């Protein structure tokens, strides 16, 4: 009697579960079978706003996945990956920082997904009266630039070299957002950041384009990492970043399309 009841109970449970499973059809937007787990994405600081938006959209399409974003200077992130930080995806602000990771055999295929252009940034109201690149050599102004090893700093150096110009910076910051913050707070009279950062800071800052920026456009590569803890979801994330949905997010933010 008891055994019959147990069998009946087990059978019922199995049928109920089978019924549930078959009714949970994956929605068309999901990849099949459903992705789960965490995707750790190390991304350049300049990707903060756009990747945060992409994270939201990706998580909507893949409810089982949690995207964890880690922003910072690309060179710092590259070094962390080389030192063994557990990451699935790396989005760098220039190919040289990605090369650090590739050289350590931690990334293989890389795709350029956006480009970014430099722009001079000044606090709202332009207290320093900055009109162009030449003003960045004025010693009485507080100028904030990215340090050379960071992609934004490397591009700035190249732009200066192209212009045959020598700036007089007062501080060399670790990532582009630090430069932006110094300008936003009014501590610096001018700095050089990306066009996307100027857009992201809204009314707190004003952007001043300069000609040489067109010659030093930064190509942003993205790659899944060889030691990724969650390779399937990592690949799906990179595919999403390369998709049209993400393209509109990047366009909105001010990024350029790779040639």
């Amino acid at each position, binding site marked *: 009697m008891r055994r019959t009841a147990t069998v009946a109970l087990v059978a019922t449970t199995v049928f109920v579960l089978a019924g549930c499973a078959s009714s949970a059809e994956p929605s068309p937007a999901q990849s099949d079978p459903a992705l789960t787990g965490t995707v750790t994405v190390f991304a350049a600081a300049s990707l903060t706003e756009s990747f945060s938006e992409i994270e939201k959209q990706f998580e909507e399409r893949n409810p089982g996945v949690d995207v964890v974003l880690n922003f910072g*200077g690309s*060179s*710092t992130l*590259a*070094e962390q990956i080389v030192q063994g930080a557990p990451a699935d995806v790396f989005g760098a602000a220039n190919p040289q920082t990605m090369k650090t990771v590739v050289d350590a055999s931690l990334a293989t295929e890389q795709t350029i997904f956006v480009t970014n252009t430099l722009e001079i940034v000044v606090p709202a109201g332009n207290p320093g009266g900055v009109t162009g690149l030449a003003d960045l050599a004025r010693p009485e102004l*507080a100028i*904030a630039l990215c*340090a050379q*090893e960071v992609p934004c700093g490397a591009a700035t150096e190249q732009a200066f070299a192209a212009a045959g110009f020598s700036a007089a*910076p*007062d*501080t*060399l*910051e*670790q990532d582009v957002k630090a430069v932006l913050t*110094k300008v936003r*707070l*009014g*501590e610096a009279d001018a700095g050089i950041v990306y066009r996307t950062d100027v857009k992201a800071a809204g009314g707190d800052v004003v952007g001043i384009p300069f000609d040489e920026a067109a010659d030093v456009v930064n190509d942003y590569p993205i790659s899944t990492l060889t030691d990724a803890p969650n390779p399937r979801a990592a690949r799906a994330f990179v595919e999403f970043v390369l998709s049209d949905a993400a393209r509109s997010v990047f366009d909105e933010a001010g990024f350029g399309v790779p040639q």
Partner: protein
Amino acid sequence: MAVLGLPLVALIVRAPWAQLPELLGRTETIAALLLSLGTSALATIVSVILGVPLAVVLARSASWPAIPRRLMRALVTVPLVLPPVVGGVALLLLLGRRGLIGEWLNAWWGVSIPFTTSAVMIAQVFVAMPFLVLAVEGALRSSDRRFEVVAATLGASRFTVFRRITLPLVAPAVAAGALLTFTRSLGEFGATITFAGSFPGVTQTLPIATYLELQRDPNAAIALSLLLMGVAVIVLVSLRDRWVPGVTA
């Protein structure tokens, strides 16, 4: 013991000993070292000048009402428990060009503190002075007040009592506190990079240079770390038994 000692052992074991002279001899490294030593020394002097009187006031505050006394003690201890970056942000909001005081400094005298070597020193004083104050205060509290009382009965003025009785009694604690202040200033990173920025020769101290080198040339970063560790060890060894604030030999 292992938790504290093994990381240092790892540093020594993995150091690029053969390349050490070349790595440490670079101009930027020497510049960072001299800047660090210079600003830390100045910060220590400032801390002694400002901190010893503060410590005397604190130690003799037993007769004050409870709340002002506790508040003062808390204020002195706050920089010790505050994350350095938070200290840097706070300093920026006070002395930055749009800061509470900095705005007026800038408007009236055209003085701008961030991105200068003075900013480095101010950041160091902010984080390190509490060490000195607490060390001296501890010594004062435990010192025998009867000497001072006797000196007063013998006709010494308050200043003479302070100069010839109190100060010599706490001199070892001042020395110990000063050495701790110096070492803490040498290692200051978060407040410096937030408030003073980072520029070679002006504000790029040894810890900041080490952080930067980690992204460029990890071997150089290890060399710089060894250097910093070496300086710290030398300073602390010379303290011998007296390096816990408030505890005298």
